[in-house]
C-alpha cells in the first residue's frame, strides 16, 4: 500500500526504535482564569505493534496528550518538550511537514463516529480523500484508484460487501459500522501508529466488543501500534499491552497491563481500580432466592405498557416501548438495563409524567397515567423524585444550590425562609455536602458534588418513589463509586422505592434487587439481579453480559473466548 506514496521519510529507521517517543511534554492553555497546565511532564514511548493505553479521569490530560501527537492543539495552547514520530518532532515541524506526517505516519480515531464523518460525502470519498492528499509529487492518484483502495480499506475493517458500502453515505450505516469506517480511513495509508481517543465510549457495549476485536486484529495482522485513550478500565484490560495512568497532567504509574491490574503500585491506581464496578461482585441481591421487598404496597404497575412516538405525516409512529409489564413495590430497587434506544429512559420519563403512555396500563401511586392530566397528577408529584443523568445540566445556572434544593419545598409546602434554610442544610448534610454549599452556584461544584445536590433535591419532600435515569454515567469512575455508595446508604435509610435506569450492568447489579433487561422496547428478561448476571436466560442478555469487558486482563481474555464461542466465530 505504501508503494505509491513515495519516499518522503527522512531516514530509514532501525526496527527497534519506538514508533512514538514523547519526552518531557508540557502543554499549557490560556483561559479566562489564567493559565491551565493540562500536561505537566509526560514522557512515554510506544513500540511497534504495541497497544499502549493512556488511562485517566476527566481533566487528567490524556486527550490533550493524544491531540499533541497529531499536532491538533488549539491556538490558545503552547507546548514544550518533544513528540518524536519516526524522528520528526511534531511540536516543532513546519505545517506542511506536519500535514505529511498526519495520515501517513500517524492517524486518529475519534470518539463520536457520527460527527467524525461528513454527512454529505460518501464514506468511500472520505477515505479516498486521505489517500489522494498524500499522493507523492507527480503521482496523482486517479479517482478510480483511490476508490479501489478505499474499498480495500473497508474490507480490512470487516465491512460486509465493501464494493457496495463504499458508495454509502454515513447515515446509511449503523454506529458500529461508522466507527469501522473511521478506522478504515485511519488505516488507509498504513500508518505505523493509530491514536484512538475513546474509540468505544459513544458505542453500545455489544458494539464496543466488536470494535475492540477489530483493533486487536489490526495489531495482530498488520503490526499497527495503537495509543488507546480511555477512562474505561474494562477496555484497557481487554486490549492494552501496557498502561500509562495519568492524573492531573502527570504520569502516575506505567506498567504492563497484567502487572498493573494484579499489583498496582501507586495509591491513586489502587483507588482507581477499586472504584471500578466489577460484574458479579458486590451484588445487591447476593444470595437472594426470591424477589425481595414484596410485602409492601405496589407503587408502580405497568401492564402491557406501550409508548408510541407519533410518526410524521403518513408514517406509522415509533414504538419506543412495546408491551412491557412489571411492578415496583415499596422499598424495592428495580434496575432497568438496556442499550441506547431500548426505551429504558422513556419508561422512566413516562412514570414521572414527562412522556405520555399510549397503550396498556401504567399505574403510578394508584394514578392511571393513560388519563394523565397535569392538575390531577400534581399532588402526587411530591411523592416522586427524579435524578437526571447530567448533573451539570439539571441545575438552573442562575440559582444557587440552596435555591435549587429548596425549589420543591417552595412549590409544595410553602415554608418560611428560615424553615427552608434549615431543611436545605439537613438535606445537604444527608448527602454528605457541607451546608455552606447552599450558597454556591452549580458551576462552582464538581460533577460528583452536583449529583449529590441533585439527589438532595429529589429527596427534599421525602418521596416514596425515586426515578434515577443514568445518574452516574456522566461521572468519573472514582466519583461514581462514592455516589453509588451514598445512594445505596440513603435508600436503605429512607426506604423509598427506586427505578434505577442504566446501561451499565455492573452498576445496576450493585444497587438493584430486581433487574429488567430491555431490548428494542421489549422487556426480554427480568429476575433477581445476581441470577440474571450469573445465569442469563435470554440470548440478548447473554450477549450483553458477555460483551461487557471486566477490569481484569486474565479474566477478560477468558470471557472474550466465551463471547466468541457464543457468537459462533
Amino acid at each position: 500500500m505504501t508503494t505509491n506514496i513515495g519516499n518522503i521519510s527522512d531516514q530509514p529507521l532501525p526496527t527497534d526504535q519506538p514508533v512514538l517517543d514523547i519526552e518531557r511534554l508540557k502543554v499549557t492553555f490560556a483561559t479566562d482564569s489564567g493559565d491551565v497546565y493540562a500536561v505537566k511532564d509526560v514522557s512515554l514511548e510506544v513500540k511497534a505493534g504495541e497497544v499502549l493505553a493512556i488511562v485517566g479521569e476527566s481533566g487528567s490530560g490524556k486527550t490533550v496528550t493524544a491531540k499533541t501527537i497529531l499536532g491538533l492543539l488549539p491556538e490558545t495552547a503552547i507546548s514544550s518538550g518533544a513528540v518524536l514520530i519516526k524522528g520528526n518532532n511534531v511540536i516543532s515541524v513546519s505545517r506542511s511537514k506536519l500535514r505529511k506526517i498526519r495520515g501517513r505516519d500517524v492517524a486518529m480515531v475519534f470518539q463520536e463516529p457520527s460527527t467524525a464523518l461528513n454527512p454529505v460525502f460518501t464514506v468511500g470519498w472520505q477515505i479516498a480523500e486521505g489517500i489522494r492528499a498524500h499522493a507523492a509529487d507527480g503521482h496523482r492518484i486517479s479517482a478510480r484508484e483511490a476508490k479501489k483502495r478505499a474499498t480495500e480499506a473497508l474490507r480490512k475493517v470487516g465491512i460486509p460487501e465493501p464494493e457496495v458500502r463504499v458508495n454509502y453515505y454515513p447515515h446509511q450505516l449503523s454506529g458500529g459500522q461508522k466507527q469501522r469506517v473511521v478506522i478504515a480511513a485511519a488505516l488507509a495509508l498504513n500508518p505505523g501508529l493509530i491514536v484512538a481517543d475513546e474509540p468505544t465510549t459513544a458505542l453500545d457495549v455489544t458494539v464496543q466488543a466488536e470494535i475492540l476485536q477489530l483493533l486487536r486484529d489490526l495489531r495482530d495482522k498488520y503490526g499497527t501500534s495503537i495509543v488507546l485513550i480511555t477512562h474505561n478500565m474494562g477496555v484497557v484490560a481487554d486490549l492494552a499491552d501496557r498502561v500509562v495512568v495519568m492524573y492531573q497532567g502527570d504520569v502516575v504509574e506505567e506498567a504492563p497491563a497484567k502487572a498493573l491490574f494484579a499489583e498496582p503500585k501507586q495509591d491513586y491506581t489502587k483507588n482507581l481500580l477499586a472504584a471500578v464496578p466489577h460484574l458479579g461482585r458486590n451484588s445487591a441481591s447476593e444470595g437472594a432466592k426470591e424477589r425481595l421487598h414484596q410485602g409492601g404496597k405496589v407503587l408502580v404497575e405497568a401492564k402491557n405498557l406501550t409508548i408510541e412516538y407519533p410518526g410524521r405525516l403518513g408514517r406509522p409512529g415509533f414504538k419506543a416501548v412495546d408491551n412491557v409489564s412489571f411492578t415496583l413495590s415499596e422499598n424495592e430497587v428495580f434496575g432497568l438495563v438496556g442499550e441506547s434506544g431500548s426505551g429504558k429512559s422513556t419508561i422512566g420519563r413516562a412514570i414521572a409524567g414527562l412522556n405520555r403512555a399510549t397503550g396498556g396500563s401504567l399505574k403510578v401511586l394508584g394514578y392511571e397515567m393513560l388519563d394523565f392530566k397535569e392538575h390531577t397528577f400534581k399532588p402526587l408529584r411530591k411523592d416522586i423524585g427524579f435524578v437526571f443523568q447530567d448533573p451539570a445540566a439539571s441545575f438552573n445556572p442562575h440559582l444557587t444550590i440552596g435555591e435549587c434544593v429548596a425549589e420543591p419545598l417552595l412549590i409544595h409546602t410553602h415554608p418560611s425562609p428560615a424553615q427552608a434554610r434549615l431543611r436545605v442544610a439537613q438535606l445537604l448534610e444527608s448527602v454528605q455536602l457541607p451546608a455552606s454549599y447552599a450558597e454556591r452556584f452549580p458551576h462552582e461544584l464538581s460533577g460528583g458534588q452536583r449529583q449529590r445536590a441533585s439527589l438532595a433535591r429529589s429527596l427534599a419532600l421525602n418521596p416514596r418513589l425515586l426515578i434515577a435515569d443514568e445518574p452516574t454515567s456522566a461521572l468519573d469512575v472514582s466519583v461514581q463509586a462514592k455516589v453509588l455508595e451514598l445512594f445505596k446508604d440513603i435508600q436503605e435509610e429512607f426506604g423509598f422505592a427506586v427505578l434505577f435506569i442504566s446501561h451499565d450492568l455492573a452498576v445496576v447489579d450493585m444497587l438493584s434487587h430486581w433487574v429488567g433487561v430491555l431490548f428494542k422496547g421489549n422487556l426480554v428478561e427480568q429476575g433477581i439481579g445476581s441470577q440474571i448476571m450469573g445465569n442469563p436466560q435470554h440470548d440478548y442478555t447473554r450477549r450483553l453480559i458477555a460483551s461487557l469487558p471486566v477490569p481484569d486482563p486474565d479474566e477478560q481474555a477468558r470471557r472474550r473466548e466465551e463471547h466468541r464461542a457464543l457468537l459462533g466465530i
Partner: protein
Amino acid sequence: MSTATFSGPKKSFLSGLPVISHLNKSVGLQRGMLITGLVLTGFFLLCTILAPFIAPYGYSQLSDQSGSFPAQQAPSSKHLLGTTVGGYDVLSRVLWGSQTAVTVIVVAVAMSIFLGVALGLLSGYYGGWLDRVLVVIADAIYAFPSLLLAIVMSIVISHGQSSFWGGILACAFSITVVFVPQYFRVIRAETIRLKAEPFVESAMVLGASSMRIIGRHIFKNATRTLPLMFTLNASESILTLAGLGFLGFGIEPSSAAEWGFDLNKAMADASSGIWWTGVFPGIAIVLTVLGLTLVGESINDLNDPRLRGRKRAGGKPSRSAAAVGQGGNTGAGTGSAAGNGTREAGNA
C-alpha cells in the same frame, strides 16, 4: 448556616455588568474595537445630555438679538458649522439631533424588548396554535422591507402629524413593529431549547406551575443575548429614524432636530457646493452607528469563547511569538466576519 441567605454572587456588582465585564476580558484588537466603540457611544451620549448647555442656539432658533440668521452661510465664528437653507445653525441642529436619536432608541427598543421577550417566552413555552399564529405574523412582518413598513406605520400612527412626541412616538412605534419579530424569534428559539434542558424538566417533575417555570427558570437564561441585541438594534433604529426623516416622514424642524430631515434638506445644496449642511449630520449618523455597532460586535465576539482572543499562556512572548500574533489577528478578523453573519442571521 444561621446567617446564610440564598443570594449574593461573590463578584462585585460593577464588574458583573455586561459591557464592563466584556472590557475586562478583552485583549488586543478586540479591546481596541470595544474601546473605540465605547468612546464614540460615550461621546454621543454626552452630547445628548449636554445639548442644552453646549449648543449655541436652540434647534428651531432662526434669529438672535442681532437679527435673523443668514441662510446657507459658510462656517464662521458666529456659526461654527454654518447655517442651513432654512437658516438653522448646523452645529446646534447636530447636537440637538442626538437627543432626538436617543429618545427614539430608548422608546423603540424598550417597547420592542418588552413585547418581543414576553411574546417569545409564551410562544416558545406553550407552543401549539398560539406559537403558530405568532410565527406567521412575525414572518409576514419580515417579508416587508423594514423601511417601507416603518413608513406605512408612521402614516398610520401619526397621520403626518409632527409634534415632538407625536413624531418620536410615530418613529418609535414603526421601529418597534420592525424589531419585535427579531426579539420574538431569538427569545422563542432560546425558550424552545431551554424547555428541553434537564433543569427545566426537573422543575416540571417537581410540579412547578408554568408561570413559575417561565419566570424563574427560563427567563434569565433566555435573555443573555439581550445586551448584544440592544446595541445592534440601537444602531439600526438610528438608521431607520434617519431614513424616515430623509424620506420626509420624520419630525418637523420646529418640533425637534433630526439628522435625516436635515440631510433631506441638504440634498439640493450638495450640487451647489454647499457642503456643510449635509456633511455634519451625515458624520453624526455614521459615527453614532459605528460606535454602537463596534460595541455590539465586540460583545458578540467576546461572548463566544471560540472567537475571543486571549493573552498567551505563560504570560511571556513565546518562541513562536510571530505565529502567535498572526493567529490572534486572524482570530479577530474571522470574529467580526462571523459577528456580521450572526447579525444578518438575527435580522433574517
